[in-house]
């Protein structure tokens, strides 16, 4: 049954009428018009729907909205702006990472969380952090370069 649910999304307090079991992805996309998380698999196997909840990357396609109530949700669009980009965003542009870019939320939201936890990750720490994420265009090496560049920028 639909209930009124309150959560903070990209820094703004939002309130929606939705069944708390509805996956967060659909509440973000269809109730709040936040399109950057994408449906990829609905099975937590690819990462295209990734957002951060209280700073931790989660797969919004399998996360019930109830799990985000009262918490801070950050989408890719809330990570930074062209005027004030997050280092990983600046690095992504510098390295010209994405091709189609449909998977980008998984990698960038995970990278941002990783860099917060480990500002100077090693190559294997980066690879481990990205476990389970998919990129069909094969931009993996550019992603690695961008994470290292972002780490260097914040050093």
């Amino acid at each position, binding site marked *: 049954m639909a209930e009124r649910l309150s959560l903070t999304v990209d820094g703004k307090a939002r309130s929606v009428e939705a069944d708390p079991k*509805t*996956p967060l992805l*659909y509440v973000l*996309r*269809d109730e709040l*018009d936040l*399109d*950057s998380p*994408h*449906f*990829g*698999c*609905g*099975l937590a*196997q*690819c990462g*295209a729907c990734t957002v951060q909840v209280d700073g931790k990357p989660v797969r919004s396609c399998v996360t019930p909205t109830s799990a985000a109530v009262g918490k801070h949700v950050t*989408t*890719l*669009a*809330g*990570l*930074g*702006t*062209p005027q004030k*980009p997050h280092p990983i*965003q600046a690095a*992504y*542009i510098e390295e*010209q*990472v*994405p*091709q*189609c*870019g*449909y*998977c*980008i*939320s998984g990698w*960038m939201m995970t990278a941002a969380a990783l860099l917060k936890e480990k500002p100077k990750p090693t*190559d294997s720490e*980066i*690879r*481990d952090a*990205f*476990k*389970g*994420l*998919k*990129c*069909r*265009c*094969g*931009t*993996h*090496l*550019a*992603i*690695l370069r961008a994470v290292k560049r972002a780490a260097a920028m914040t050093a």
Partner: protein
Amino acid sequence: MNAHTSLSHLGRRDFLRTLGALVVGAAVPAPVLAAATGAAKGAAADLGKSMDPATLDAWLAVAPDGMVTAFFGKPDVGQGVEVAIAQIVAEEMDLPVERVQVHLADTGLTCDQGGVSGSTGVQRGGATLRNIAAEARRLLVEHAAVELKVPADQLRVDDGVVSAPGGGKRTYAQLVKAAFEAKLDWNGQYGNGLTAKGKAKPKAAKDYKVVGASPKRRDIPDKVFGHYRYSADVRLPGMLHGRTVRPPVAGAKVVGVDEASIARFGGARVVRKDDFIGVVAPKEWDAIQAAQALKVTWSDAKPPFFDSEALFDHIRAAEPQKRQVVTETSGVAEALANGGMQLSAEYQWPFQSHASMGPGCAVADVRPDGVTLYNPSQKTHATAQGVAKLLGRPVESVRSIYVQGPGSYGRNDAGDACADAALMSLLAGKPVRAQGMRADGHGWDPKGAASIHTVKATISDGGRIVGHDYTSKGFTRMEVNTFEQEPQDFLAGQQTGFHNKPVPGFAAPEDAYEFKARRVSWETIPGLLDGPSPLRTSHLRDPLGPQMHFASESFIDECALAANADPVAFRLAHMTDKRHRAVVEAAAKAAGWKAGPPGARRRAEGGRMIGTGFAYAPRGDTIVAIACEVEVDKATGRIWPRRFWVAHECGLIINPGTLKNVIEGNVVHGASRALFEEVTFDPNNVTSIDWAHYPILEMADAPESIDIVLIDRPDLAPSGAGEPSTRPVPAAIANAIYDATGVRLRRAPFTRARMKAELAAA
């Protein structure tokens, strides 16, 4: 709508004022698109823009602020064609690239240049734009000459300003206000074959300033900041979300649908025509749940398939439906039968899935007076034709606008999503956004063909291949046409009475080897299900290239081994063409290639066996050679393609930065297909319906480095880079595995289990 250029700074009036000269360009703003429902040519008519490929203003427009728009009849699926076309136009018009924007494929605004097809974006599409931009500059300068009363050859152009030695100046924007008739020499063809040019001679490569530089792609900032609009993000007033329901046993027909079974999902309802079943609802989550809950009674179909483990036995035994001898030199039978050492081997390649990042997603708005498609397919114009026929509407009434989807590498499920959306919109009477679930993407997208390849050779006492016979046998490359011009090319078409019409055909491997006698041939076999099939084949990046060259280039190494020769030297010994030799030599040099027969570079570190392999292949006029170092873990069978060295020659290079990223993507995609990707099925249906059952290469197995040597040939026309570097990757890896382990893998993918089993058997 930032997936497109915006024409916002150029109102209708301004556009009309520029008519006749060069007209316009930037992104079509969302209101223009939204208002554009119906008549494919309505959008151009509204702007006063020509759609006649023989006129200049079908292709280019100059806005009052000096911004130039090129109308390009192919999409950019994320490989950076947009910026390359902008560079080409900017170069010929003496503009900075920032002043050129490209309006990508849109039946309402761009001429049909064939869509994304065979790595022809720059190769063919760019060649036409180059000629047209050169003609535009010529006409503008000619006009300035009249106005400034100075001979044209004394004028110069900088950043879109034409200036005379005495100080007179005119901007392009000023010059286009005076209309003139500008006719082009158009070859009368639409599609990939379209060419158009004027009287102008394009610049010589030595004068290039913009072409050859690496300006950044313009779609990337929006992607990185989460603002880019994909087809999945198109929203129209009153739009419903649609999901289709596919049969559990492929080929089953609909016997009955229990509409009451979804009554509990807010506003969800069934739309049905024949065997096509959709569920539409105002909210996406409701549509998903309803589609999963819908009770459908299916016919008792005979299971159409068998277990995929029996695939290669099936191919071997199947009666061919078409045969073709592609090459046959005289004396090949004698050469193969007599003398020297005789070798033969068979290589196997499974069905593979496009498995795009998201299932195909399209939005259609079907109204009585016209249809608008927000279309992620690579074939913007062709899809409009197929959808028009599916709906029984005149093709002129369908406006098809390219909007990027979740990645595409050929004919994936994007076109099917268009047809699903259009049919559901027709039946529901509302705009519909259709997206499959993961199982629809993996399970029901068109597949790359499965095949076996048999190669035989005779090697002379001098260590040369003197007879060579290469035969492919497999499913046709196109059970559904990659150009979706007919309703049966869509699943929804086949479910609503349009019978599929497979095009039997395969291809031949390419190389520059000069064997004394050779034969190349192929045979195709019928598809496994005559009807809407989850195993229907169509083009997947470098159609048939990876598998054909997995066989041909693995076999070259097998011959080199038999001749006790170094694989690089052995290849070079069979080719005289200087371009091909240069590419092979460049890759070997970059890799620091250590000469010696296969196995000579083997070393061990702990439980890992390390080796380096080589492969080369042209694709059309593009030539690629790749060396690969792999590590094979003895205990687990894990194969890590740790390093690649790629030499790549595609004629003139437009944007080396973008080109390198495209090559990296191709190499990783090729490695993924070689190591991980295999469609599995049981007698009823495809079973590799998610990422757990259709694994692809992930970050843990991504190479440590891909070193790329770009060989720029400004004296040669650009020849395409979107696919060719995929082609030699599987063989380079297989040859490296042999070098590392002494085990020859002839069946793809090279999974851990297979590697482990082969090591144990060795």
